């Protein structure tokens, strides 16, 4: 058997001791079903919702005036909008990785983090979608060149363009992620339906649960569907960031036109995503006292994945620099020299500091198991990945082939308002999610309880006891 029993492995357990089916249900379900909204939640939500208003301001102004309110000009036609798009969509990737790839690899420690990581994916994709849609300036007009539908002009999208691939990849990704998330929620909503005392909530969760009754015949199809979805989401998630990287790699701009881009982008996405999962998991487990479910083992595993993908990203930086030199191409060499010593050199070196130097501190177990330190590293990595996209996009565009067409770029206050606004959107959605839906999958947690008998004869977890 390839599936090593998680309970056998050395290190901290993936579930605190003394839990039964009932306590798992109560501990996770009560976070949602408690009558009184906790004060801390209200405070956090107020801040998030406040930030969201900045987005409203940014959008209204953008639609009234036009995208001239943003800092993008020629030669830098892609600024904050694409930087933030790539940043957000990358963050989403960890959710799918945890829910799909780790499921296929039978990594049972994923059970307590997959639900909110999937929610994070959905919200991050929503934030990401905001940018290209509004970068079109007039989204309702742009529909006909983004989506294939029979319009009165008889026009069809150009399927040879990576930007159309992006539309297909991102919209499929959003749809499949939403399906995966919802399918996972069906049994848990049935649990909430049966648990709540309120008539209204019974109806609401009952509708969400679609009449789920836990029939073994249903579970049988359900498990098959869940595995199939995981198997489908795995190539999908790899394709999404690959396609995002094609937006750059198929162009001729020095600094973009590189074959390393797809794997390097995918690794970067997972890296940024795990940083965001840690950023959310650490306060969540602390505030709702979920330390029994999201244990040190989870945090440490996530730190390890983050470090491993961080090393792949670092390799990408090295290859980028090496290839610029090895190509012998004047423009490529200039691009790299300009990145390292030009007007945006500070950002490049900050990026190296954030993404190459910082994650290597996680080699030390002392640091890796220090929660405040992990939280700090996760934030630094998020900043680093934002800088990476800034460096790739802006330093490549601002000085290309013709010195006569060089320029400089900086985001305007509306760029920042939109960016901070999407952070507000992300947090607002996340706060709402934690309040109304179980942030940890109850039925999956039950399968890893010792003696649950969920996996084959007698349950492996139990044999180990």
């Amino acid at each position, binding site marked *: 058997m390839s599936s090593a029993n998680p309970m056998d492995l050395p290190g901290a357990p993936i579930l605190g001791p003394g839990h039964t089916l009932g306590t798992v249900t109560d501990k996770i379900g009560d976070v949602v079903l408690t009558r009184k909204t906790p004060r801390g939640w209200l405070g956090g939500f107020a801040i998030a919702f406040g930030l969201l208003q900045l987005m409203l301001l940014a959008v209204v102004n953008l639609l009234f005036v036009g995208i001239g309110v943003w800092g993008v000009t020629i030669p830098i036609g892609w600024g904050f909008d694409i930087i933030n798009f790539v940043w957000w969509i990358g963050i989403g990737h960890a959710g799918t990785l945890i829910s799909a790839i780790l499921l296929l690899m039978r990594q049972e420690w994923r059970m307590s983090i997959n639900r909110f990581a999937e929610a994070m994916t959905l919200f991050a994709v929503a934030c990401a979608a905001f940018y290209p849609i509004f970068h079109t300036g007039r989204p309702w007009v742009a529909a006909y060149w983004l989506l294939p539908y029979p319009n009165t002009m008889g026009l*069809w999208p150009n399927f040879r363009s990576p930007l159309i691939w992006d539309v297909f990849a991102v919209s*499929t990704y959003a749809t499949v992620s939403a399906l995966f998330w919802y399918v996972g929620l069906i049994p848990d909503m049935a649990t909430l339906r049966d648990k709540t005392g309120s008539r209204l909530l019974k109806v609401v969760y009952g509708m969400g649960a679609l009449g789920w009754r836990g029939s073994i015949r249903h579970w049988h199809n359900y498990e098959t569907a869940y595995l199939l979805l995981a198997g489908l989401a795995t190539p999908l998630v790899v394709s999404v960031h690959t396609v995002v990287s094609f937006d750059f790699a198929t162009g001729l701009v020095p600094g973009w036109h590189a074959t390393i881009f797809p794997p390097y982008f995918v690794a970067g996405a997972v890296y940024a995503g795990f940083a965001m999962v840690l950023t959310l998991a650490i306060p969540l487990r602390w505030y709702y006292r979920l330390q029994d479910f999201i244990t040190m083992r989870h945090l440490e595993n996530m730190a390890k994945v983050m470090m491993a993908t961080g090393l792949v990203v670092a390799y990408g930086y090295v290859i980028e620099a090496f290839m610029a030199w090895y190509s012998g191409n004047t423009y490529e060499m200039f691009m790299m020299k300009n990145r390292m010593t030009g007007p945006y050199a500070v950002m490049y070196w900050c990026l190296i500091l954030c993404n190459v130097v910082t994650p290597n501190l996680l080699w030390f177990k002392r640091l890796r198991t220090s929660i405040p330190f992990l939280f700090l590293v996760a934030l630094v990595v998020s900043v680093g990945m934002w800088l990476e996209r800034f460096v790739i996009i802006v330093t490549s565009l601002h000085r290309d082939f013709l010195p006569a067409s060089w320029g400089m770029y900086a985001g305007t206050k509306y760029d920042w308002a939109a960016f901070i606004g999407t952070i507000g959107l992300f947090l607002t959605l996340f706060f709402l999610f934690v309040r109304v839906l179980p942030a940890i999958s109850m039925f999956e947690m039950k399968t890893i309880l010792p003696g649950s008998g969920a996996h084959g004869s007698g349950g492996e977890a139990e044999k180990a006891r």
Partner: protein
Amino acid sequence: MSAEVATSGLYGLMAEFRGPHEIVAGARLVTEKGYRRVDGYTPYPMEDLSEALELPRSVLPKLVLGGGILGCLLGYGLEYWSAVIAYPLNIGGRPLHSWPSFIVPAFETTILFAAGTAVLGMLALNGLPQPYHPVFNVASFAKASRDGFFLAIEATDPKFDRADTRRFLESLHGVVQVSEIEE
């Protein structure tokens, strides 16, 4: 429910088991005894229980394969039709049928249709959404989504007999209680 308590008003008999191992052992005996219209209700999926009840393999993978193939054909067909027939455009001198570029969207529609089939197919095979089901009439059944393990033998089973089946269920190891399920 209503006053008519003949066998016609009975959906079946439901036994509540103490734990997962008891229900699997019980389900084996129920299958051995020849009952076929049997269903288990558990808070999480249990492979052992599916095996004990000798459930056939799910047909879902075949449906999903079909959905994926359909998605691929539709996606590629749309690209071919729009780029070659409906709106031919010369983009950088590439052939109208530039198949390497068409792979990516066709791949995405393949995944989209396959995933959609997986979810809708699962719901269809399970007969969901279903607003009413008799098992919910059993008072203790709310536990099935929490920590209860239930096994129901339906009244439509040819071997079903109100008294005999009840006695049989009560004789199984680890049964907490046996209740009648009203229609």
